[in-house]
């Protein structure tokens, strides 16, 4: 591989890594024709993991990190002194195809700094996707970042070639955006999300392709002072209004070129993790934002225990739940019971009565569930209401390191 190309790749991957999304899931199952390349599997594949525990599924790069915008949290803002580079459309296409052929990746996730104009940039990105699909018969996954400032007809065309489109909200409130990303505009972001949603719905009804894996967004956590409840409310609204497939939470991470208005600190990884758990409860476990917020304090989630346990501890009157009779909705609310385990319980109890030993084969986190359930041979007695229940279930506090 050409040395300048390797160097560009390093710069433009480095510039793309603050985007949390790397998923290659939800695309319709398909395989390329005889002369094409690639397939999608539905659930996606992680081809490697980096030492931050994150999955490498797509070739996640920027077309260029030159940018006319000046967003304080972003390494690529125009006032940053970071090293710049720019790929040509052909270079990105060739890299994607060659990496794909060696089974390094599931496809491409292309984003870009804004150069010349949002329209120009969006068109170049769209051209990459179009070339891959048309010239190389590429059937792998393509995720394109939609630039909300670009003209709507370019978003229309991007959706024809991509499996997923995403528009990043980045900051959950208008005020934060104004302060940290002065060129960005909430209305523009929302109208693009609205346009994408509308087109996805119509294309499904008309059996056409338009961003078949849906749209997603990213919210940066910890760059402004929005509470967890505020973040979750923003997500909840977006899930309902725009049918988003995912909201990604990205702990604001130190970047090599800090901005004057945004001091750097270690990323709030635990907070990010709790937000993902809460998001999961919203989407798959029938919880409302109010219920999740109830488990925390002052709009912030409990960092020590997971949000489901936090909610259960404050709603002990709804427990214990009998695993042999309770309905699925209530079983999903038992701390330590995941969706899959609950489904297995519901299937198994049609043929047998479940005791603790049976449950231990269905879920690895039975210990957390015990105080909240009744089983064939188990009742928590007074355990559910004990004052020290939280202390019994919370992971032991880390010992202070003295020296």
């Amino acid at each position, binding site marked *: 591989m050409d040395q300048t190309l390797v160097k560009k790749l390093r710069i433009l991957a480095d510039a793309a890594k603050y985007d949390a999304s790397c998923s290659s899931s939800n695309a319709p199952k398909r395989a390329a024709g005889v002369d094409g390349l*690639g397939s999608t599997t539905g659930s996606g594949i*992680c081809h490697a993991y980096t*030492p931050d525990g994150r999955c490498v599924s797509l070739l996640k790069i920027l077309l260029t990190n030159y940018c006319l915008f000046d967003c304080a949290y972003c390494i690529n803002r125009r006032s940053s002194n970071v090293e710049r580079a720019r790929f040509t459309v052909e270079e990105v296409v060739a890299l994607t195809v060659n990496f794909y052929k060696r089974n390094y990746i599931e496809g491409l996730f292309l984003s870009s700094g804004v150069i010349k104009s949002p329209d120009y940039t969006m068109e170049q990105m769209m051209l990459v996707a179009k070339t891959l699909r048309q010239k190389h018969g590429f059937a792998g996954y393509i995720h394109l970042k939609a630039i909300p400032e670009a003209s709507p007809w370019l978003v229309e065309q991007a959706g024809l070639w991509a499996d997923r489109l995403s528009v990043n909200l980045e900051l959950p409130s208008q005020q934060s955006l104004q302060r940290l990303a002065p060129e960005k505009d909430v209305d523009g972001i929302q109208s693009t999300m609205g346009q994408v949603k509308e087109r996805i719905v119509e294309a499904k009804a008309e059996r056409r392709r338009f961003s078949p894996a849906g749209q997603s967004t990213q919210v940066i956590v910890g760059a402004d002072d929005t509470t967890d409840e505020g973040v979750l409310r923003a997500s909840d609204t977006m899930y309902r209004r725009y049918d988003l497939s995912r909201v990604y939470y990205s702990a604001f991470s130190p970047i090599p070129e*800090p901005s004057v208005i945004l001091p750097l600190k270690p990323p709030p990884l635990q907070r990010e993790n709790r937000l993902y758990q809460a998001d999961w409860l919203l989407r798959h476990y029938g919880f409302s934002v109010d219920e999740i917020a109830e488990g925390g304090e002052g709009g912030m989630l409990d960092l020590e225990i997971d949000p489901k346990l936090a909610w259960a501890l404050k709603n002990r009157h709804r427990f214990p739940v009998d695993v042999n009779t309770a309905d699925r909705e209530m079983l999903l609310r038992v701390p330590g019971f995941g969706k899959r385990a609950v489904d297995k319980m519901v299937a198994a109890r049609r043929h047998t009565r479940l005791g603790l030993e049976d449950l231990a084969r269905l879920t690895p986190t039975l210990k957390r569930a015990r105080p909240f359930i009744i089983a064939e041979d188990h009742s928590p007695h007074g355990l559910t209401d004990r004052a020290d229940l939280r202390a019994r279930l919370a992971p032991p506090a880390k010992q202070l390191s003295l020296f």
Partner: protein
Amino acid sequence: MARHIALREGADLDSFRQAARGLVAEGVPPEAVTWGSDAAPGLFAAEAPADAPPLALPRAVAEFIQPVVCHRDPERYGLLYGLIWRSLHGERALAEVSSDPLVHRLERMRKAIRRDLHKMHAFVRFRQVGDPAEERFTAWFEPEHFILEATADFFVERFRALRWSIVTPIGSLHWDREALRFGPPGTRADVPESDAFEEGWRGYYASIFNPARVNPTAMRAEMPKKYWHNMPEAALIPDLIREAPARTREMIAKQAALPKRRDPARAVEKMARQAPPTLAALNALIAATDPLVPGATRAVLGEGPEGATIAFVGEQPGDQEDLAGRCFIGPAGQVLDRAMQEAGIDRARSYLTNAVKHFKFVQQGKRRIHQSPTTGEVKHYRWWLKQELDFVKPKLVVALGGSAALALTGEVVPVMRYRGRARFEGGQPGYIMPHPSYLLRLPDEAAKARAYEDFVADLRAIRAMAEELEAGAAA
């Protein structure tokens, strides 16, 4: 004495199936059978049962068999036969009872196989061999279980157009773009030492890693160390982890620096003016774009003077319009021309365009039969129409037919019910009437004549409205 069933080494699904059928037919319970992967090649054990008819098994049981025979556990056949036996002897729903110890164990084995398959799909790394023009790829991989055959479909589907081999200690797979061949086991030495793209791939891997989030435990949970030695990028892991804390400290300690480059104020200002500056520029853009539904010869653009008082918006170009590249020149256009003349509207001073800019059709012999655009297609094009009308700035916009009304209002509008004056998006004075092609489709002459009268009456009303609006603007 217990029966011994000898199967071939590896995942011997066929022999297992045959043996299980026979044993069930003979009524041999699981505790009376021992299973081994010790069959001499080409020789099926003497104790093997005779051929028996297929077993009708619950689907949940069948779903265990194929994956679990790939497992390395020597007890796999015995466990599966136990499941089959019990399912056929009073416990038909057994495979759905995940809390049963046998089912639980089989579920864990199946999960291990799925994981092994998934990791093989993920972690195989191809290297190019031979003449670059010919493009052949090989990979060396060490799966944990006997999954080589089970994994073949995935790689064939994905890399159908390439020639490749996957070599493992339990056998090899070879694909030549047409047929799949299973070959003998190989060694690492069968695969080249490196590949021209590995340097780039390693560079990517190192750069996409964020040292401020270092979490090797999470990484190892998904990418256990046993896979590392066959992955070119994994050699970087120790250094990346070791250097991470220092890199993070450095970033946090770093003071914000003033930009070294000049603030690109002019470029930033210019960026805001990206919209096409003229109707001609917009038209150039439309003309350069591919049709949403493939087939059209060209985009058919709007016609007429900017500043026209009335703009007529039709549905989409037809066969003749597509060939000539001009709107409203086919049969429907001719009807419109005649009616406009009768109503006293000068076509040359009006603006005419379509909601959708490309012809859509199905081919029937030599004829191209027009197809109406779908809602999604109309909406796909409406952003252009909006821009177009912003340049023309007509006083009155006429929607000819449902597609135009949809494009101008954003909603599906029943034309006959809302025929007459209307308000379009942005408060634009408008008028909704049928498309002239509607007149061509009416079957009997009397109805046609009546509809034509109404059509001309609409245009008269439009002319009056336009005059009203012009007078209002002049006053």
